[in-house]
Protein backbone atom coordinates (compact mmCIF):
# COMPACT_ATOMS: atom_id res chain seq x y z
CA UNK A 1 0.00 0.00 0.00
CA UNK A 2 1.37 3.38 -0.98
CA UNK A 3 1.20 6.52 1.16
CA UNK A 4 -2.31 7.48 2.18
CA UNK A 5 -1.86 11.06 0.97
CA UNK A 6 -0.79 10.09 -2.51
CA UNK A 7 -3.10 11.60 -5.12
CA UNK A 8 -5.22 8.93 -6.73
CA UNK A 9 -5.62 8.35 -10.45
CA UNK A 10 -8.87 7.24 -12.03
CA UNK A 11 -7.38 3.79 -12.61
CA UNK A 12 -6.48 3.47 -8.93
CA UNK A 13 -9.96 4.57 -7.84
CA UNK A 14 -11.90 2.40 -10.28
CA UNK A 15 -10.57 -1.11 -10.83
CA UNK A 16 -11.12 -2.37 -14.38
CA UNK A 17 -13.90 -4.79 -13.50
CA UNK A 18 -15.96 -2.22 -11.60
CA UNK A 19 -15.34 0.37 -14.31
CA UNK A 20 -16.61 -2.10 -16.90
CA UNK A 21 -19.80 -2.78 -14.94
CA UNK A 22 -20.28 0.95 -14.41
CA UNK A 23 -19.97 1.68 -18.13
CA UNK A 24 -22.42 -1.11 -18.94
CA UNK A 25 -25.01 0.31 -16.54
CA UNK A 26 -24.48 3.87 -17.76
CA UNK A 27 -24.83 2.79 -21.39
CA UNK A 28 -28.28 1.43 -20.60
CA UNK A 29 -29.33 4.50 -18.63
CA UNK A 30 -27.98 7.02 -21.13
CA UNK A 31 -28.92 5.07 -24.29
CA UNK A 32 -25.45 5.75 -25.64
CA UNK A 33 -22.10 4.01 -25.96
CA UNK A 34 -20.09 4.98 -22.86
CA UNK A 35 -16.35 5.08 -22.07
CA UNK A 36 -14.12 6.18 -19.19
CA UNK A 37 -10.75 7.64 -20.16
CA UNK A 38 -7.83 8.65 -18.01
CA UNK A 39 -5.95 11.96 -18.36
CA UNK A 40 -3.82 10.67 -21.20
CA UNK A 41 -6.91 9.62 -23.17
CA UNK A 42 -6.44 5.90 -22.54
CA UNK A 43 -9.76 4.07 -22.40
CA UNK A 44 -10.11 2.39 -19.00
CA UNK A 45 -13.49 0.83 -19.69
CA UNK A 46 -16.33 0.93 -22.18
CA UNK A 47 -16.35 1.50 -25.92
CA UNK A 48 -13.24 2.52 -27.81
CA UNK A 49 -12.95 5.14 -30.49
CA UNK A 50 -15.73 7.42 -29.26
CA UNK A 51 -15.49 11.08 -30.39
CA UNK A 52 -13.75 13.23 -27.77
CA UNK A 53 -15.96 16.30 -28.33
CA UNK A 54 -18.60 15.05 -25.91
CA UNK A 55 -16.23 14.16 -23.03
CA UNK A 56 -16.88 15.52 -19.53
CA UNK A 57 -14.12 16.12 -17.00
CA UNK A 58 -14.22 14.01 -13.85
CA UNK A 59 -12.88 16.17 -10.98
CA UNK A 60 -11.94 14.63 -7.64
CA UNK A 61 -10.27 17.46 -5.70
CA UNK A 62 -9.46 20.40 -7.93
CA UNK A 63 -8.34 19.15 -11.27
CA UNK A 64 -9.74 16.46 -13.64
CA UNK A 65 -8.42 12.96 -13.21
CA UNK A 66 -10.27 11.50 -16.20
CA UNK A 67 -13.17 11.82 -18.63
CA UNK A 68 -16.64 10.39 -19.22
CA UNK A 69 -17.58 9.87 -22.85
CA UNK A 70 -21.22 9.30 -23.85
CA UNK A 71 -21.62 10.97 -27.27
CA UNK A 72 -25.27 10.07 -27.93
CA UNK A 73 -26.58 10.85 -24.46
CA UNK A 74 -28.75 13.76 -23.51
CA UNK A 75 -26.35 16.51 -22.22
CA UNK A 76 -28.27 16.96 -18.95
CA UNK A 77 -28.32 13.25 -18.28
CA UNK A 78 -24.63 13.08 -19.21
CA UNK A 79 -23.80 15.81 -16.65
CA UNK A 80 -25.83 14.01 -13.99
CA UNK A 81 -23.97 10.78 -14.78
CA UNK A 82 -20.60 12.57 -14.40
CA UNK A 83 -21.72 13.90 -11.03
CA UNK A 84 -22.78 10.43 -9.96
CA UNK A 85 -19.40 9.03 -10.92
CA UNK A 86 -17.69 11.83 -8.98
CA UNK A 87 -19.60 10.95 -5.83
CA UNK A 88 -18.53 7.33 -6.30
CA UNK A 89 -14.93 8.40 -6.74
CA UNK A 90 -15.00 10.59 -3.60
CA UNK A 91 -16.44 7.74 -1.54
CA UNK A 92 -13.81 5.45 -2.95
CA UNK A 93 -11.02 7.96 -2.28
CA UNK A 94 -12.17 8.39 1.32
CA UNK A 95 -12.10 4.67 1.81
CA UNK A 96 -8.66 4.26 0.25
CA UNK A 97 -7.17 7.18 2.21
CA UNK A 98 -8.64 5.97 5.50
CA UNK A 99 -7.38 2.46 4.86
CA UNK A 100 -3.93 3.74 3.91
CA UNK A 101 -3.77 6.01 6.94
CA UNK A 102 -4.94 3.23 9.18
CA UNK A 103 -2.11 1.03 7.97
CA UNK A 104 0.42 3.86 8.30
CA UNK A 105 -0.70 4.73 11.83
CA UNK A 106 -0.79 1.09 12.88
CA UNK A 107 2.73 0.74 11.58
CA UNK A 108 3.77 3.90 13.42
CA UNK A 109 2.17 2.66 16.65
CA UNK A 110 3.83 -0.71 16.19
CA UNK A 111 7.21 0.91 15.66
CA UNK A 112 6.66 3.02 18.77
CA UNK A 113 5.80 -0.09 20.76
CA UNK A 114 8.87 -1.84 19.45
CA UNK A 115 10.98 1.14 20.38
CA UNK A 116 9.52 1.12 23.90
CA UNK A 117 9.98 -2.63 24.08
CA UNK A 118 13.62 -2.44 23.14
CA UNK A 119 14.13 0.42 25.60
CA UNK A 120 12.53 -1.72 28.31
CA UNK A 121 14.68 -4.69 27.39
CA UNK A 122 17.72 -2.50 27.51
CA UNK A 123 16.89 -1.18 30.95
CA UNK A 124 15.97 -4.67 32.14
CA UNK A 125 19.36 -5.95 31.00
CA UNK A 126 21.00 -3.01 32.71
CA UNK A 127 19.20 -3.76 35.97
CA UNK A 128 20.10 -7.44 35.73
CA UNK A 129 23.70 -6.48 35.22
CA UNK A 130 23.53 -4.09 38.16
CA UNK A 131 21.92 -6.76 40.35
CA UNK A 132 24.62 -9.28 39.45
CA UNK A 133 27.31 -6.71 40.07
CA UNK A 134 25.73 -5.85 43.40
CA UNK A 135 25.57 -9.51 44.37
CA UNK A 136 29.23 -9.99 43.50
CA UNK A 137 30.16 -6.91 45.48
CA UNK A 138 28.15 -8.06 48.49
CA UNK A 139 29.85 -11.47 48.35
CA UNK A 140 33.21 -9.77 48.09
CA UNK A 141 32.43 -7.50 51.03
CA UNK A 142 31.20 -10.44 53.09
CA UNK A 143 34.50 -12.19 52.36
CA UNK A 144 36.49 -9.14 53.36
CA UNK A 145 34.47 -8.76 56.58
CA UNK A 146 34.96 -12.45 57.40
CA UNK A 147 38.67 -12.12 56.91
CA UNK A 148 38.86 -8.92 58.94
CA UNK A 149 36.87 -10.59 61.71
CA UNK A 150 39.29 -13.50 61.79
CA UNK A 151 42.26 -11.20 61.81
CA UNK A 152 40.68 -9.15 64.58
CA UNK A 153 39.91 -12.26 66.59
CA UNK A 154 43.43 -13.44 66.05
CA UNK A 155 44.98 -10.11 66.88
CA UNK A 156 42.99 -9.85 70.07
CA UNK A 157 43.89 -13.38 71.00
CA UNK A 158 47.54 -12.75 70.29
CA UNK A 159 47.41 -9.54 72.26
CA UNK A 160 45.82 -11.18 75.27
CA UNK A 161 48.22 -14.12 75.08
CA UNK A 162 51.05 -11.62 74.76
CA UNK A 163 49.82 -9.64 77.78
CA UNK A 164 49.48 -12.83 79.78
CA UNK A 165 52.91 -13.97 78.72
CA UNK A 166 54.43 -10.62 79.55
CA UNK A 167 52.75 -10.66 82.96
CA UNK A 168 53.79 -14.25 83.65
CA UNK A 169 57.31 -13.55 82.48
CA UNK A 170 57.56 -10.56 84.72
CA UNK A 171 56.02 -12.25 87.76
CA UNK A 172 57.84 -15.57 87.40
CA UNK A 173 61.24 -14.44 86.13
CA UNK A 174 62.05 -12.46 89.26
CA UNK A 175 61.29 -15.22 91.83
CA UNK A 176 62.83 -17.79 89.49
CA UNK A 177 65.93 -15.61 89.34
CA UNK A 178 66.47 -15.48 93.03
CA UNK A 179 65.41 -19.11 93.56
CA UNK A 180 68.03 -20.14 90.98
CA UNK A 181 70.61 -17.89 92.57
CA UNK A 182 69.79 -19.16 96.06
CA UNK A 183 69.97 -22.74 94.87
CA UNK A 184 73.48 -22.11 93.48
CA UNK A 185 74.50 -20.52 96.74
CA UNK A 186 73.00 -23.49 98.57
CA UNK A 187 75.17 -25.78 96.43
CA UNK A 188 78.20 -23.81 97.55
CA UNK A 189 77.11 -24.07 101.15
CA UNK A 190 76.57 -27.81 100.69
CA UNK A 191 80.17 -28.11 99.45
CA UNK A 192 81.34 -26.38 102.61
CA UNK A 193 79.19 -28.73 104.73
CA UNK A 194 80.64 -31.72 102.90
CA UNK A 195 84.11 -30.33 103.71
CA UNK A 196 83.29 -30.70 107.40
CA UNK A 197 83.09 -34.52 107.15
CA UNK A 198 86.80 -35.09 107.65
CA UNK A 199 87.33 -32.78 110.64
CA UNK A 200 84.10 -33.87 112.34
CA UNK A 201 84.76 -37.61 112.05
CA UNK A 202 88.33 -37.03 113.31
CA UNK A 203 86.96 -35.66 116.58
CA UNK A 204 86.34 -38.01 119.54
CA UNK A 205 82.94 -39.61 119.08
CA UNK A 206 82.52 -37.53 116.00
CA UNK A 207 82.45 -40.50 113.67
CA UNK A 208 79.62 -42.09 115.68
CA UNK A 209 77.53 -38.94 115.62
CA UNK A 210 78.16 -38.50 111.87
CA UNK A 211 77.14 -41.98 111.25
CA UNK A 212 74.09 -41.79 113.56
CA UNK A 213 72.92 -38.74 111.67
CA UNK A 214 73.52 -40.61 108.40
CA UNK A 215 75.27 -37.48 107.16
CA UNK A 216 77.00 -39.13 104.17
CA UNK A 217 73.67 -40.06 102.67
CA UNK A 218 72.10 -36.75 103.65
CA UNK A 219 74.83 -34.72 101.98
CA UNK A 220 74.70 -36.85 98.81
CA UNK A 221 70.93 -36.71 98.62
CA UNK A 222 70.97 -32.98 99.39
CA UNK A 223 73.27 -32.43 96.42
CA UNK A 224 70.90 -34.47 94.22
CA UNK A 225 67.92 -32.50 95.46
CA UNK A 226 69.61 -29.20 94.70
CA UNK A 227 70.70 -30.40 91.24
CA UNK A 228 67.18 -31.55 90.44
CA UNK A 229 65.75 -28.31 91.76
CA UNK A 230 68.15 -26.24 89.64
CA UNK A 231 67.17 -28.36 86.61
CA UNK A 232 63.50 -27.80 87.40
CA UNK A 233 63.96 -24.05 87.84
CA UNK A 234 65.90 -23.91 84.55
CA UNK A 235 63.01 -25.70 82.83
CA UNK A 236 60.53 -23.17 84.25
CA UNK A 237 62.80 -20.35 83.04
CA UNK A 238 62.93 -21.95 79.55
CA UNK A 239 59.15 -22.29 79.41
CA UNK A 240 58.74 -18.66 80.30
CA UNK A 241 61.29 -17.75 77.67
CA UNK A 242 59.49 -19.89 75.03
CA UNK A 243 56.19 -18.36 75.96
CA UNK A 244 57.68 -14.90 75.52
CA UNK A 245 59.19 -15.89 72.22
CA UNK A 246 55.98 -17.43 70.99
CA UNK A 247 53.83 -14.49 71.85
CA UNK A 248 56.60 -12.28 70.48
CA UNK A 249 56.01 -9.83 73.25
CA UNK A 250 59.51 -8.63 72.73
CA UNK A 251 59.40 -8.93 68.90
CA UNK A 252 56.12 -7.49 67.80
CA UNK A 253 57.38 -6.13 64.50
CA UNK A 254 58.66 -7.96 61.46
CA UNK A 255 62.27 -8.87 61.33
CA UNK A 256 64.85 -11.36 60.04
CA UNK A 257 64.31 -14.58 61.93
CA UNK A 258 65.66 -18.11 61.52
CA UNK A 259 62.71 -20.32 60.70
CA UNK A 260 64.26 -23.19 62.67
CA UNK A 261 64.40 -20.99 65.76
CA UNK A 262 60.67 -20.36 65.49
CA UNK A 263 59.97 -24.04 64.85
CA UNK A 264 62.03 -25.04 67.89
CA UNK A 265 60.11 -22.61 70.07
CA UNK A 266 56.80 -23.98 68.86
CA UNK A 267 58.03 -27.58 69.31
CA UNK A 268 59.11 -26.85 72.87
CA UNK A 269 55.61 -25.70 73.74
CA UNK A 270 53.80 -28.46 71.84
CA UNK A 271 56.04 -31.13 73.29
CA UNK A 272 54.64 -30.51 76.74
CA UNK A 273 51.18 -31.58 75.61
CA UNK A 274 52.35 -34.88 74.11
CA UNK A 275 51.00 -38.12 75.57
CA UNK A 276 53.51 -39.77 77.92
CA UNK A 277 56.05 -41.69 75.89
CA UNK A 278 55.05 -40.16 72.56
CA UNK A 279 57.81 -38.61 70.49
CA UNK A 280 58.27 -35.30 68.77
CA UNK A 281 61.12 -35.66 66.32
CA UNK A 282 62.89 -32.56 65.05
CA UNK A 283 64.48 -33.00 61.66
CA UNK A 284 65.51 -29.43 61.00
CA UNK A 285 67.71 -28.93 57.97
CA UNK A 286 69.54 -25.76 57.07
CA UNK A 287 66.83 -23.12 56.78
CA UNK A 288 67.01 -19.50 55.79
CA UNK A 289 66.60 -16.42 57.84
CA UNK A 290 63.45 -14.82 56.79
CA UNK A 291 61.90 -11.38 56.89
CA UNK A 292 58.59 -12.12 58.57
CA UNK A 293 56.25 -11.51 61.47
CA UNK A 294 57.74 -13.99 63.94
CA UNK A 295 54.83 -13.97 66.35
CA UNK A 296 52.38 -14.80 63.62
CA UNK A 297 54.51 -17.53 62.05
CA UNK A 298 54.98 -19.10 65.52
CA UNK A 299 51.23 -19.03 65.91
CA UNK A 300 50.78 -20.84 62.58
CA UNK A 301 53.40 -23.48 63.46
CA UNK A 302 51.89 -24.00 66.87
CA UNK A 303 48.39 -24.36 65.44
CA UNK A 304 49.55 -27.13 63.08
CA UNK A 305 51.73 -28.76 65.73
CA UNK A 306 48.90 -28.64 68.24
CA UNK A 307 46.63 -30.49 65.78
CA UNK A 308 49.35 -33.08 65.17
CA UNK A 309 49.92 -33.65 68.88
CA UNK A 310 46.20 -33.93 69.48
CA UNK A 311 45.84 -36.41 66.61
CA UNK A 312 48.40 -38.72 68.24
CA UNK A 313 46.84 -38.53 71.71
CA UNK A 314 45.03 -41.87 71.27
CA UNK A 315 48.24 -43.64 70.26
CA UNK A 316 49.79 -43.20 73.68
CA UNK A 317 53.52 -43.99 73.69
CA UNK A 318 53.34 -45.04 70.02
CA UNK A 319 52.38 -41.53 68.94
CA UNK A 320 54.92 -39.72 66.81
CA UNK A 321 55.10 -36.23 65.39
CA UNK A 322 57.87 -35.46 62.95
CA UNK A 323 58.83 -31.88 62.14
CA UNK A 324 61.16 -31.27 59.23
CA UNK A 325 62.40 -28.16 57.47
CA UNK A 326 64.21 -27.84 54.14
CA UNK A 327 65.29 -25.03 51.89
CA UNK A 328 65.34 -26.12 48.26
CA UNK A 329 66.83 -22.96 46.80
CA UNK A 330 63.49 -21.38 45.98
CA UNK A 331 61.39 -21.91 49.05
CA UNK A 332 61.46 -23.21 52.58
CA UNK A 333 59.30 -26.31 53.05
CA UNK A 334 58.16 -27.25 56.53
CA UNK A 335 56.50 -30.65 56.96
CA UNK A 336 54.64 -31.62 60.10
CA UNK A 337 53.61 -35.27 59.97
CA UNK A 338 51.75 -37.29 62.56
CA UNK A 339 50.75 -40.94 62.72
CA UNK A 340 47.33 -40.17 64.19
CA UNK A 341 43.89 -41.18 62.96
CA UNK A 342 43.89 -38.95 59.89
CA UNK A 343 41.07 -36.72 58.68
CA UNK A 344 37.73 -37.97 57.41
CA UNK A 345 37.67 -37.41 53.59
CA UNK A 346 34.30 -35.66 54.02
CA UNK A 347 35.83 -33.16 56.43
CA UNK A 348 39.10 -32.70 54.53
CA UNK A 349 37.85 -30.03 52.07
CA UNK A 350 36.51 -28.01 54.96
CA UNK A 351 39.51 -27.93 57.28
CA UNK A 352 40.33 -24.35 56.28
CA UNK A 353 36.75 -23.11 56.67
CA UNK A 354 36.45 -20.65 59.50
CA UNK A 355 34.83 -22.08 62.64
CA UNK A 356 34.88 -25.60 61.26
CA UNK A 357 35.95 -28.02 63.98
CA UNK A 358 35.50 -31.70 64.78
CA UNK A 359 36.42 -31.18 68.40
CA UNK A 360 33.86 -31.02 71.19
CA UNK A 361 32.26 -27.65 71.83
CA UNK A 362 34.54 -25.43 73.88
CA UNK A 363 37.73 -27.25 72.95
CA UNK A 364 38.33 -26.10 69.40
CA UNK A 365 37.69 -22.69 67.93
CA UNK A 366 37.75 -23.93 64.34
CA UNK A 367 40.17 -21.12 63.57
CA UNK A 368 43.58 -22.80 63.90
CA UNK A 369 44.12 -23.80 60.27
CA UNK A 370 42.12 -20.86 58.96
CA UNK A 371 44.41 -18.43 60.71
CA UNK A 372 47.47 -20.50 59.80
CA UNK A 373 46.57 -20.23 56.12
CA UNK A 374 45.91 -16.49 56.44
CA UNK A 375 49.31 -16.05 58.03
CA UNK A 376 51.09 -18.18 55.40
CA UNK A 377 49.37 -16.26 52.61
CA UNK A 378 50.31 -12.99 54.24
CA UNK A 379 53.89 -14.21 53.80
CA UNK A 380 53.14 -15.23 50.18
CA UNK A 381 53.29 -18.84 51.29
CA UNK A 382 50.84 -21.69 51.14
CA UNK A 383 49.65 -24.50 53.34
CA UNK A 384 48.55 -27.93 52.08
CA UNK A 385 46.96 -30.77 54.06
CA UNK A 386 47.30 -34.43 53.01
CA UNK A 387 45.65 -37.09 55.07
CA UNK A 388 45.03 -40.81 54.93
CA UNK A 389 42.49 -42.05 57.45
CA UNK A 390 44.15 -44.54 59.81
CA UNK A 391 47.68 -43.58 58.73
CA UNK A 392 48.06 -39.96 59.65
CA UNK A 393 48.21 -36.46 58.34
CA UNK A 394 50.94 -34.42 56.70
CA UNK A 395 50.74 -30.68 56.64
CA UNK A 396 53.16 -28.91 54.31
CA UNK A 397 53.87 -25.23 54.78
CA UNK A 398 55.81 -23.48 52.07
CA UNK A 399 57.42 -20.07 52.34
CA UNK A 400 58.99 -18.52 49.23
CA UNK A 401 62.45 -17.02 49.47
Amino acid at each position, binding site marked *: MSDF*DQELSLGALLPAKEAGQLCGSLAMLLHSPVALEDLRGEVLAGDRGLPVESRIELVL*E*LEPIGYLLAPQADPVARGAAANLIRQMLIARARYLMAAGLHIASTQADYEELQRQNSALRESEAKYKELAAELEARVAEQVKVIDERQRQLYQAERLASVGQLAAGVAHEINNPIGFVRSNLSTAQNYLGKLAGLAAPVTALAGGAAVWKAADMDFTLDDFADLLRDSIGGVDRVARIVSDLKGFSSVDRPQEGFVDINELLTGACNIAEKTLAPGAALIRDLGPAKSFLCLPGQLSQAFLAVLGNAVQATADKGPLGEVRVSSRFDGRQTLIRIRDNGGGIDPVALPRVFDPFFTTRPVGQGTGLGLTVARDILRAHNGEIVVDSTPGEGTTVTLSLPD
Partner: protein
Amino acid sequence: MPEFDPLPAPGKLTFKLVYYGPAQSGKTTNLMRLHDELAPALKGDLMTMETQNDRTLYFDLLPLGFRAPSGLLIKFRVFTVPGQVQHDGTRKAVLSRADGIVFVADSQRNQTVNNGESFQNLTDNVARVGLDLATIPLAVQFNKRDLGDVLSEDEIKARWKQAPWPVFFATATRGDGVAETFADLLRQTYRRYEDEYHLADGHGLSERDFVSQAIGLPEAVS
Protein backbone atom coordinates in the same frame (compact mmCIF):
# COMPACT_ATOMS: atom_id res chain seq x y z
CA MET B 1 9.19 18.52 -0.32
CA PRO B 2 6.39 19.73 -2.61
CA GLU B 3 5.46 17.15 -5.20
CA PHE B 4 5.93 18.07 -8.86
CA ASP B 5 3.91 16.21 -11.50
CA PRO B 6 4.99 17.11 -15.04
CA LEU B 7 1.81 15.65 -16.54
CA PRO B 8 -0.52 16.81 -17.75
CA ALA B 9 1.55 19.68 -19.10
CA PRO B 10 2.42 22.27 -17.97
CA GLY B 11 2.49 20.33 -14.71
CA LYS B 12 1.33 20.53 -11.14
CA LEU B 13 3.12 21.48 -7.92
CA THR B 14 1.41 20.15 -4.78
CA PHE B 15 2.11 21.52 -1.31
CA LYS B 16 1.07 19.55 1.75
CA LEU B 17 0.18 21.84 4.66
CA VAL B 18 -0.74 20.43 8.06
CA TYR B 19 -2.75 21.96 10.92
CA TYR B 20 -1.34 20.50 14.14
CA GLY B 21 -2.23 21.08 17.80
CA PRO B 22 -3.89 19.72 20.95
CA ALA B 23 -7.34 18.11 20.92
CA GLN B 24 -10.22 20.51 20.28
CA SER B 25 -8.05 23.57 19.77
CA GLY B 26 -9.94 24.36 16.55
CA LYS B 27 -7.95 22.81 13.72
CA THR B 28 -11.00 21.54 11.85
CA THR B 29 -12.79 24.85 12.49
CA ASN B 30 -9.83 26.64 10.87
CA LEU B 31 -10.22 24.42 7.81
CA MET B 32 -13.98 24.97 7.65
CA ARG B 33 -13.45 28.73 7.76
CA LEU B 34 -10.78 28.52 5.07
CA HIS B 35 -13.20 26.50 2.93
CA ASP B 36 -16.00 29.01 3.48
CA GLU B 37 -14.03 32.25 3.18
CA LEU B 38 -11.15 31.74 0.76
CA ALA B 39 -11.80 32.37 -2.90
CA PRO B 40 -8.96 30.90 -4.91
CA ALA B 41 -9.49 30.00 -8.56
CA LEU B 42 -9.80 26.34 -7.61
CA LYS B 43 -11.37 25.15 -4.37
CA GLY B 44 -12.40 21.60 -3.64
CA ASP B 45 -14.83 20.20 -1.13
CA LEU B 46 -13.73 19.86 2.50
CA MET B 47 -13.29 16.14 2.92
CA THR B 48 -13.99 15.21 6.52
CA MET B 49 -13.16 11.68 7.49
CA GLU B 50 -14.64 9.88 10.43
CA THR B 51 -15.41 11.92 13.58
CA GLN B 52 -16.54 10.93 17.04
CA ASN B 53 -18.24 13.43 19.38
CA ASP B 54 -17.02 16.26 17.21
CA ARG B 55 -13.43 14.99 17.33
CA THR B 56 -11.37 14.18 14.27
CA LEU B 57 -10.34 10.53 14.20
CA TYR B 58 -8.43 10.46 10.93
CA PHE B 59 -7.96 13.81 9.23
CA ASP B 60 -9.70 16.55 7.27
CA LEU B 61 -8.57 17.54 3.82
CA LEU B 62 -9.17 20.80 1.98
CA PRO B 63 -7.80 21.11 -1.56
CA LEU B 64 -7.09 24.63 -2.88
CA GLY B 65 -5.33 25.79 -5.99
CA PHE B 66 -4.67 28.26 -8.79
CA ARG B 67 -2.67 28.46 -11.96
CA ALA B 68 0.60 30.36 -12.16
CA PRO B 69 1.15 32.64 -15.17
CA SER B 70 3.21 29.81 -16.69
CA GLY B 71 0.17 27.56 -16.54
CA LEU B 72 1.65 25.49 -13.67
CA LEU B 73 -1.11 24.30 -11.36
CA ILE B 74 -0.25 25.29 -7.78
CA LYS B 75 -2.18 22.97 -5.50
CA PHE B 76 -2.46 23.02 -1.72
CA ARG B 77 -3.71 20.01 0.20
CA VAL B 78 -4.46 21.28 3.67
CA PHE B 79 -4.74 18.55 6.32
CA THR B 80 -5.65 18.46 9.99
CA VAL B 81 -4.35 15.85 12.41
CA PRO B 82 -6.36 14.24 15.22
CA GLY B 83 -5.34 16.08 18.41
CA GLN B 84 -6.06 13.43 20.98
CA VAL B 85 -2.99 11.95 22.60
CA GLN B 86 -3.82 8.33 21.73
CA HIS B 87 -3.86 8.98 17.96
CA ASP B 88 -0.16 9.62 17.76
CA GLY B 89 0.39 7.02 15.04
CA THR B 90 -2.20 8.74 12.82
CA ARG B 91 -0.76 12.15 13.64
CA LYS B 92 2.68 11.02 12.63
CA ALA B 93 1.42 9.51 9.37
CA VAL B 94 -0.45 12.72 8.44
CA LEU B 95 2.59 14.84 9.33
CA SER B 96 4.84 12.82 7.01
CA ARG B 97 6.00 14.74 3.95
CA ALA B 98 4.46 18.01 5.19
CA ASP B 99 5.74 21.19 3.49
CA GLY B 100 4.38 23.59 6.09
CA ILE B 101 2.72 23.50 9.52
CA VAL B 102 0.23 25.64 11.44
CA PHE B 103 0.26 24.91 15.16
CA VAL B 104 -3.16 25.75 16.60
CA ALA B 105 -3.02 26.30 20.36
CA ASP B 106 -5.92 26.82 22.75
CA SER B 107 -5.69 30.24 24.42
CA GLN B 108 -7.49 29.18 27.60
CA ARG B 109 -5.29 29.39 30.66
CA ASN B 110 -6.14 25.82 31.72
CA GLN B 111 -4.96 24.47 28.34
CA THR B 112 -1.38 25.67 28.76
CA VAL B 113 -0.09 22.22 29.67
CA ASN B 114 -1.91 20.58 26.75
CA ASN B 115 -0.46 23.17 24.38
CA GLY B 116 3.02 22.50 25.69
CA GLU B 117 2.69 18.75 25.45
CA SER B 118 1.26 18.97 21.95
CA PHE B 119 4.06 21.23 20.78
CA GLN B 120 6.59 18.86 22.29
CA ASN B 121 4.81 16.04 20.45
CA LEU B 122 5.08 18.07 17.24
CA THR B 123 8.82 18.56 17.65
CA ASP B 124 9.26 14.84 18.41
CA ASN B 125 7.20 13.74 15.43
CA VAL B 126 8.79 16.26 13.07
CA ALA B 127 12.12 14.62 13.85
CA ARG B 128 10.68 11.11 13.57
CA VAL B 129 9.22 11.64 10.11
CA GLY B 130 12.50 13.13 8.91
CA LEU B 131 11.56 16.82 8.80
CA ASP B 132 13.60 19.68 10.25
CA LEU B 133 11.85 22.08 12.59
CA ALA B 134 14.54 24.68 11.92
CA THR B 135 13.71 24.99 8.23
CA ILE B 136 10.11 23.90 7.78
CA PRO B 137 7.59 26.78 7.45
CA LEU B 138 5.64 27.02 10.72
CA ALA B 139 3.08 29.50 12.00
CA VAL B 140 1.67 29.45 15.54
CA GLN B 141 -1.93 30.41 16.13
CA PHE B 142 -3.55 31.01 19.52
CA ASN B 143 -7.21 30.30 18.94
CA LYS B 144 -10.39 30.84 20.99
CA ARG B 145 -9.62 34.49 21.85
CA ASP B 146 -13.33 35.01 22.51
CA LEU B 147 -13.44 32.72 25.56
CA GLY B 148 -13.03 33.82 29.19
CA ASP B 149 -9.89 33.20 31.19
CA VAL B 150 -7.56 33.19 28.23
CA LEU B 151 -3.89 34.10 28.38
CA SER B 152 -3.43 37.75 27.42
CA GLU B 153 -1.70 38.54 24.14
CA ASP B 154 1.19 40.06 26.09
CA GLU B 155 1.63 36.92 28.16
CA ILE B 156 1.64 34.75 25.05
CA LYS B 157 4.02 37.05 23.19
CA ALA B 158 6.35 37.08 26.18
CA ARG B 159 6.34 33.29 26.33
CA TRP B 160 7.02 32.88 22.60
CA LYS B 161 9.50 35.72 22.38
CA GLN B 162 12.47 33.38 22.16
CA ALA B 163 10.86 31.18 19.49
CA PRO B 164 11.59 31.92 15.82
CA TRP B 165 7.98 31.45 14.68
CA PRO B 166 5.34 34.15 14.16
CA VAL B 167 2.40 34.01 16.58
CA PHE B 168 -1.17 34.84 15.49
CA PHE B 169 -4.36 35.30 17.48
CA ALA B 170 -7.62 33.93 16.18
CA THR B 171 -11.23 33.20 16.90
CA ALA B 172 -11.80 30.54 14.29
CA THR B 173 -15.52 30.20 14.99
CA ARG B 174 -15.93 33.81 13.79
CA GLY B 175 -13.20 33.54 11.18
CA ASP B 176 -10.94 36.12 12.90
CA GLY B 177 -7.25 35.53 12.25
CA VAL B 178 -7.79 32.36 10.24
CA ALA B 179 -6.87 33.75 6.82
CA GLU B 180 -4.01 35.81 8.33
CA THR B 181 -2.43 32.72 9.81
CA PHE B 182 -2.81 30.83 6.56
CA ALA B 183 -1.44 33.77 4.55
CA ASP B 184 1.67 33.86 6.71
CA LEU B 185 2.21 30.14 6.28
CA LEU B 186 1.90 30.65 2.50
CA ARG B 187 4.49 33.44 2.62
CA GLN B 188 6.93 31.23 4.53
CA THR B 189 6.22 28.35 2.16
CA TYR B 190 6.92 30.53 -0.88
CA ARG B 191 10.23 31.72 0.60
CA ARG B 192 11.26 28.22 1.53
CA TYR B 193 10.66 26.65 -1.89
CA GLU B 194 10.87 29.59 -4.31
CA ASP B 195 14.45 28.94 -5.39
CA GLU B 196 14.09 25.21 -5.65
CA TYR B 197 11.04 25.33 -7.95
CA HIS B 198 11.87 28.59 -9.74
CA LEU B 199 8.49 30.03 -8.84
CA ALA B 200 9.50 33.57 -9.75
CA ASP B 201 11.87 33.20 -12.67
CA GLY B 202 10.39 29.99 -14.12
CA HIS B 203 6.70 30.49 -13.55
CA GLY B 204 6.30 34.25 -13.17
CA LEU B 205 4.91 33.94 -9.67
CA SER B 206 5.82 36.61 -7.08
CA GLU B 207 5.43 36.07 -3.37
CA ARG B 208 2.57 38.53 -3.27
CA ASP B 209 0.76 36.82 -6.14
CA PHE B 210 1.40 33.40 -4.62
CA VAL B 211 -0.32 34.41 -1.40
CA SER B 212 -3.14 36.49 -2.87
CA GLN B 213 -4.01 33.92 -5.53
CA ALA B 214 -4.16 31.16 -2.93
CA ILE B 215 -6.26 33.25 -0.58
CA GLY B 216 -8.33 34.99 -3.21
CA LEU B 217 -9.10 37.74 -0.69
CA PRO B 218 -7.08 40.89 -1.39
CA GLU B 219 -7.97 42.45 1.97
CA ALA B 220 -6.48 39.54 3.96
CA VAL B 221 -3.08 40.05 2.37
CA SER B 222 -1.23 42.97 3.86
